[in-house]
């Protein structure tokens, strides 16, 4: 009786009797995020428990969201409960991966490192490994239903993702759950929806990319090209773009300034037909030897590194051309509104009770899971459309986030969520800039101009200085400013 599909070997580990020590450790993390509403302080500490996958060279792989804003990380042997402090070697919030190292390498002795299984395809069964409080293994098996490019929690670019159908059980350490195939690490849990029983996993190819990059002297991060695209299925759009030959490629809708594609000369309206030797079809897919059709962005995130050269074959006004792009990583600080800011204290400047900050998505996320609807909509708009609103790039949006009532701010108490344009007549494009401009009052007054009503706010410079200690005292502000 031949099965219709090739039967894979069982993904379950060998019976307990013959089993080696599991290649897992518990990871306990205590963290403390910064409070963006009171940027001089941290929020109450939290603790998270997770599992880490033991890798060669005495390192432990976890997801980055586990160690975000960590104060203290410790590893715990599952079978003995023995604990040791660990430090974060490398963290990549965009790919959601982090590498830990125990302060003493021999702590991991006896645990055989996990190898990576890079060949997972749709239809494979993977096992999610969790631990009982006793240290015994809990194994749940699920089916890989989709392999495609998806957004990760930080929403910076897209990464290869396995989507699985799996009925997971709750265990106290359900953060970084390893997904295993033939005793090899196939992925790490990215997110799980218990209602639909769908699990998204960071796949081994992304983990491999991360680990290879870690081997280099300076971790660079995943590369990006810096353009957006649209399918060319519409024959009218193809004809408008002057495309000749067989229908293929994607229409370039925007090119980010100062990014690799722009530097290589890519233009809006170009049609990108191939990357290297991989032809791109009308929807933006290429044929991957392992997965079949998948979006071409996988060629960049999974297969290339910052600094690599990439040949973009394009059509411009019907003429084929080739652009050689030198890839680079786009760091969070290269955005007008940085997409995330973790482990770093937020910058702020308090002036007589007015609190100035730089707009960041981390700040907007203080409004909780529904921040897109609940955060000040003007700021959400500025964040969302930052590339088209600020094509010159390279500057920050300084906001007056709130006002602490004080003698200096009488009558200003209700002002909040304003965009600062000028201080003392000087253009403002960063907090450092503002701090400098404040030092140059006009006839003894500090004049702040905002995009929105009230448009102008004035303070008396001498009074601000005189009352600064009292302000710090009454609101418990250790320092009135923190610039980068």
């Amino acid at each position: 009786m031949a099965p219709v599909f090739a039967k894979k070997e069982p993904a379950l580990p060998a019976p307990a009797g013959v089993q080696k020590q599991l290649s897992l450790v518990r990871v306990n993390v205590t963290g403390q995020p910064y409070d963006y509403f009171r940027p001089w302080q941290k929020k109450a500490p939290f603790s998270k428990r997770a599992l880490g996958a033991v890798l060669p060279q005495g390192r432990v792989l976890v997801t980055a969201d586990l160690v975000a804003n960590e104060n203290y990380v410790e590893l715990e042997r599952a079978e003995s409960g023995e604990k040791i402090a660990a430090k974060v070697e490398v963290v990549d919030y965009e790919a959601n991966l982090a590498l830990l190292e125990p302060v003493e390498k021999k702590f991991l002795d006896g645990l055989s490192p996990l190898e990576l299984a890079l060949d997972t395809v749709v239809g494979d069964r993977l096992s999610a490994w969790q631990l009982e409080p006793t240290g015994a293994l809990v194994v749940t098996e699920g089916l890989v239903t989709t392999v495609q490019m998806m957004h990760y929690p930080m929403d910076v670019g897209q990464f290869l993702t396995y989507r699985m159908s799996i009925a997971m059980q709750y265990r106290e350490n359900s953060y970084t759950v390893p997904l295993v195939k033939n005793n090899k690490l196939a992925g790490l849990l990215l997110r799980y929806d218990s209602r639909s029983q769908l699990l998204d996993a960071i796949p081994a190819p992304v983990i491999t990319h991360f680990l290879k990059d870690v081997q280099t002297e300076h971790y660079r991060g995943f590369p990006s090209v810096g353009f957006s695209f649209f399918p060319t299925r519409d024959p009218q759009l193809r004809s408008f773009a002057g495309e000749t030959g067989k229908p293929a490629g994607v229409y370039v809708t925007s090119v980010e300034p100062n990014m690799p594609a722009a530097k290589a000369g890519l233009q809006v309206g170009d049609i990108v037909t191939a990357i290297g030797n991989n032809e791109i079809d009308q929807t933006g897919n290429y044929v991957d030897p392992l997965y079949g059709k998948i979006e071409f962005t996988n060629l960049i995130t999974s297969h290339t590194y910052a600094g690599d050269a990439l040949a973009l074959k394009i059509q411009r006004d019907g003429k084929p051309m080739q652009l050689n792009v030198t890839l680079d990583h786009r760091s969070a600080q290269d955005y007008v509104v940085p997409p995330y800011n973790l482990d770093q204290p937020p910058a702020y400047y308090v002036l007589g009770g007015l609190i100035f900050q730089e707009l960041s998505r981390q700040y907007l996320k203080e409004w909780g899971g529904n921040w897109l609807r609940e955060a000040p909509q003007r700021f959400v708009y500025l964040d969302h459309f930052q590339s088209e609103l600020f094509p010159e790039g390279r500057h920050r949006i300084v906001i007056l986030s709130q006002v602490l009532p004080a003698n200096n701010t009488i009558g200003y108490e209700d002002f909040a969520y304003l965009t600062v344009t000028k201080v003392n007549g000087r253009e403002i494009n960063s907090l450092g800039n503002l701090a400098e401009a404040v030092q140059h009052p006009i006839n003894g007054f500090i004049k702040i101009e905002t995009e929105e009503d009230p448009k102008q706010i004035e303070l008396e410079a001498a009074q601000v200085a005189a009352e600064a200690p009292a302000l710090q005292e009454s609101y418990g502000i250790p320092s009135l400013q923190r610039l980068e």
Partner: protein
Amino acid sequence: MKRAIIFVWLLLLCGRHLDAQQDTPPPFPTQPIPSAKPSAPAPAVVPVPVTPPRPNGKIQNSLVRITVTEAEPDYKAPWNAGAIQRGVGAGFVIDGSRIMTNAHVVSNSRYLTVERDGDPNKYRATVQFVAHDCDLALITVSAPDFFKNMTPLKFGGIPELESTVSAYGYPIGGERMSVTAGIVSRIDFQLYTHSSIDSHLAIQISAQINPGNSGGPVMQNGKVIGVAFQGYSGDVAQGVAYMVPTPVIRRFLKDIEDGHYNGYVDLAISYSKLQNPAQRKFLGLKDDDRGVLVTTVVAAGPCAKILREGDVLLAMDDHPIASDSNVELEGERVEFPEVVERKFKSDKVKLNIWRDKQPMTVNVELNTVWPYRIQGHRYDVRPRYVVYGGLLFQPLNLDLIDAYQPTDLRIRHFFDYFVVEQIYLEHPDVIVLTNILPDPINTYLAAYRGGIVDEINGKKIRTLEELAKTFSETPDRFVVKLIGEGPPLVLDPKQVEAARERIKTRYNVLREQNLEEQAAEKTPQDQNKI
């Protein structure tokens, strides 16, 4: 003119819809209305004996019950007449053979009848004047004897806080007139939810008013001191009902004296209080608690080119403006725009201002300000739209937002900041591709839905008329640039023309465009007879 969303129900609808395909506010109370009847089946509803002391006289002689059949425009299928609904409201006779009621009672009406106590007839009525910005309307009946035995009611002033008032109307719970009594709880500015953009004086009363009370008089000492019009639904707050007070009513009656309702005028500025000592010193103002700072001057408003950002308003028509933005009017402290609130189109207002540390006097001729209107509900107009190649283009306004509930950040931004960021200067109509009627010629265009039209073939498109005119031409192709980053939308006019009848037939598109907000119906006077 601030926009705020509050959960206010309008009292008109009482759940008698002939056509239930539209979602309408559910009948108001979830709990049964306490009945006056004993629980045993009574033989009949015995008419309430009406003899006891009645401070307001025999209101039946002045009150009418208005039954309205309305067609609510369908912004998702704007070529249709809209869902037919029926509702009941109240009205009362005033001088000049006129009946006063709420605008929302007669909005979008297709057919209007009134009934009165002790008369078996239904009389056809017509709308004379409707003021959607203050929720008032006047209707009349042309049947010759209708007003003969009716007593016109007179208007009083603003009632005292805590004084007793009675509200009359036809709320749910029975067919005949209902009276409830309460006291005056609060006198303040309120958002009038009928337009949902206008705020005027409103008086809160504790008398129970329910759907069907709308348009009914609220009386004290035999005089009308308000028209019941809105309240909170029971799950938000109980016993909070509002009436339109007589200053608003008198303004309406005066505005229409020339045979046309112009509506409220507005300075179209925003301002900020001037309570900060440092700011006052910076501006060179005296420490006398006077003045407000002008922060935005709307270019389409009457103050454009007269006032500037940074001016300080010191007095309006010689009423000193305090630094908290209040003026004293007839012994009451009110926000200074109230001075303008009482004026009419083309009236002048004198402003004493402080500019560059110098006093100045300017005069402003007041006018209505159109850009605000897209942020309020519209009535008695047909939706404007253009269908081209199965693509439905509609100008952005509150009714469109309500119909489609878009989550698109750009659409929401253009709506919210239409006036404040003066988007209307470049895009008097913000034309949204709201929907696509699928056809082979547009099958790849779904991703363009929700886009806002910027240019066609390199030409800026400012209004729906310009869009329609451009689409009436036949270039080789139309390249529609939408606002923001994204691919252009490319259409071939020959293909569109070939698909035209097919799309019209398949989707029953009765008309491919409506460019003007013409009134939904103009009723000739001679149709008044039954």
